[in-house]
């Protein structure tokens, strides 16, 4: 038996048997470009953002986000159509009030998509596969957070653009509409950041199927209804109660956003009695918004320290 050059050590008479030979079966080393950490991060962001609308996933996964997106845009189209047909000189819906008007739809979208984005990775234990790529924990968390916030921003900003386009077609005042649109976009951007943080934190902490959805809805709606009811009672009682309405708004995500935009972005107040938070309360609104964004990031980082490997 001849020694095979591709089987070093194999086939020679001094080895006890063929079982011990090491075969060179022709694996090649990779010599192309290594795209690195930034590329992996961007890919994860793009893939998560597309996943937020079911793109690149099965047709069944597209139904929920696209349906909700449709529901989100229909009122804007109706408002625009009515405004143009009747020739009013002002849109019946304020840009900044639109998101709070459709808050249940936004809540459902977040509840459907945030678990989709992070819970499945945790449930199927595929998170370690991400970290076998050249990304760090911070890349994963930032990419997922940015993707969720971007998906929510698209979800809430497109109807505003529809309203804006309609307003311009209806030849409403250009400068005023543009200013209101800009403020409206700022308000939905803040909303997207806050809601994406809340949604992802809850979803990452409850990876069980169905549980995350219910938990997100619960976190968004229960405090909201509780706070609005108590605000109503407080404003009915008058006196100190009216001042308390502004402070009470801090206690739920929905009223936090309402109070924030009423105070800083000149939106019409949703609160009972059209109360606008006082300056001190307004400062707390700002701080709480910042704390929620930073806090969600910190909780997510802590969550993936454990789930990392």
């Amino acid at each position, binding site marked *: 038996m001849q020694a095979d050059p591709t089987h070093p050590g194999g086939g020679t008479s001094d080895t006890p048997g063929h079982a011990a030979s090491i075969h060179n079966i022709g694996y090649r080393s990779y010599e192309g470009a290594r795209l690195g950490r930034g590329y992996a991060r961007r890919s994860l962001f793009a893939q998560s953002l597309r996943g937020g609308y079911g793109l690149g996933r*099965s047709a069944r996964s597209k139904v929920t986000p696209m349906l909700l997106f449709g529901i989100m845009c229909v009122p804007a189209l109706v408002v625009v159509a009515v405004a143009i047909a009747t020739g009013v000189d002002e849109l019946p819906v304020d840009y900044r009030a639109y998101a709070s008007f459709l808050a249940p*739809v936004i809540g*459902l979208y977040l509840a459907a998509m945030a678990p989709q984005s992070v819970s499945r990775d945790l449930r199927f234990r595929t998170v370690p596969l991400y970290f076998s790529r050249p990304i760090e924990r911070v890349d994963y968390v930032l990419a997922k957070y940015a993707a969720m916030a971007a998906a929510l921003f698209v979800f809430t900003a497109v109807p505003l653009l529809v309203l804006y386009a309609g307003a311009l077609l209806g030849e409403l005042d250009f400068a005023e509409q543009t200013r209101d649109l800009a403020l409206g976009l700022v308000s939905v951007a803040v909303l997207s950041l806050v809601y994406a943080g809340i949604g992802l934190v809850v979803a990452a902490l409850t990876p069980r199927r169905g549980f995350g959805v*219910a938990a997100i809805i619960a976190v968004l*709606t*229960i405090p909201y209804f509780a706070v609005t009811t108590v605000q109503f*009672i407080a404003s*009915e009682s008058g006196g100190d109660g009216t001042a308390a309405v502004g402070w009470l708004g801090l206690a739920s995500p929905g009223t936090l956003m309402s109070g924030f935009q009423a105070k800083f972005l000149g939106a019409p107040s949703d609160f009972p009695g059209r109360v606008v938070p006082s300056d001190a309360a307004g400062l707390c609104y700002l701080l709480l918004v910042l704390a929620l964004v930073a806090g969600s990031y910190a909780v997510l980082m802590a969550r993936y320290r454990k789930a990392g490997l």
Partner: protein
Amino acid sequence: MYDPTVARLTYRALLGRRRAALLAVLPALLLLIATVVRVMDLADQDVAVNLLSGFALATMVPLIGVIAGTGAIGPEIDDGSIVYLLSKPVKRPTIIVTKLVVAVAVTMAFSALPVLLAGFILVGGDQQIAVAFALAALFASLAYSALFLLLGTVTRHAVVFGLVYALLWETLIGSLMPGARTLSVQQWGLAVADEVVASGVRLDADVSLGPAAVLIAVVTVAGTWYAGQRLKVLTLAGEE
């Protein structure tokens, strides 16, 4: 039509672990608000009606109905462990009826009782507000449980659809299209409360008692029957 073993398993699934905590949060919040309002001496009829219809009947009862109704059967179908139940010599409609009884009992315990308590804390026996809303919650729990149990057998996304119904249909669409309110469990419950409450209080239910009672009965019976049918032809699929 009632199997104690299935009932015991369902109770354990519904009240075990974190689910019971989730179920208890809402009633606790309601009682807390009611107590604070009472202590601050703000409680009167309007406040009581507002709190009990706006928070309790509109938010708490449907959410507890979703959790208990879908939770009674959804997770079992989801993780496939229902096959162990289905392979036992128990009729499938019996399984559904048993699970419905458990879901209704849990929903009633976590919604009607706290509503009654909150009502008494707020206004005592005044105008029978507490009793009226407790009865409304009782009947609404029945319809919600049957409806969401059915959803649990129809789709794997029962929680999402249940919440869509509870939040979108009953609040958003109901406020835009008055006609939609006729087909809302919340309004049927309100109709019951409207009948019981003394004449001094106006609740503005969109449905009168007769149609409301018929609709509650139809939803409960038809929902339970169809859920039994669905369970008969259930096929198990892997997770997407």
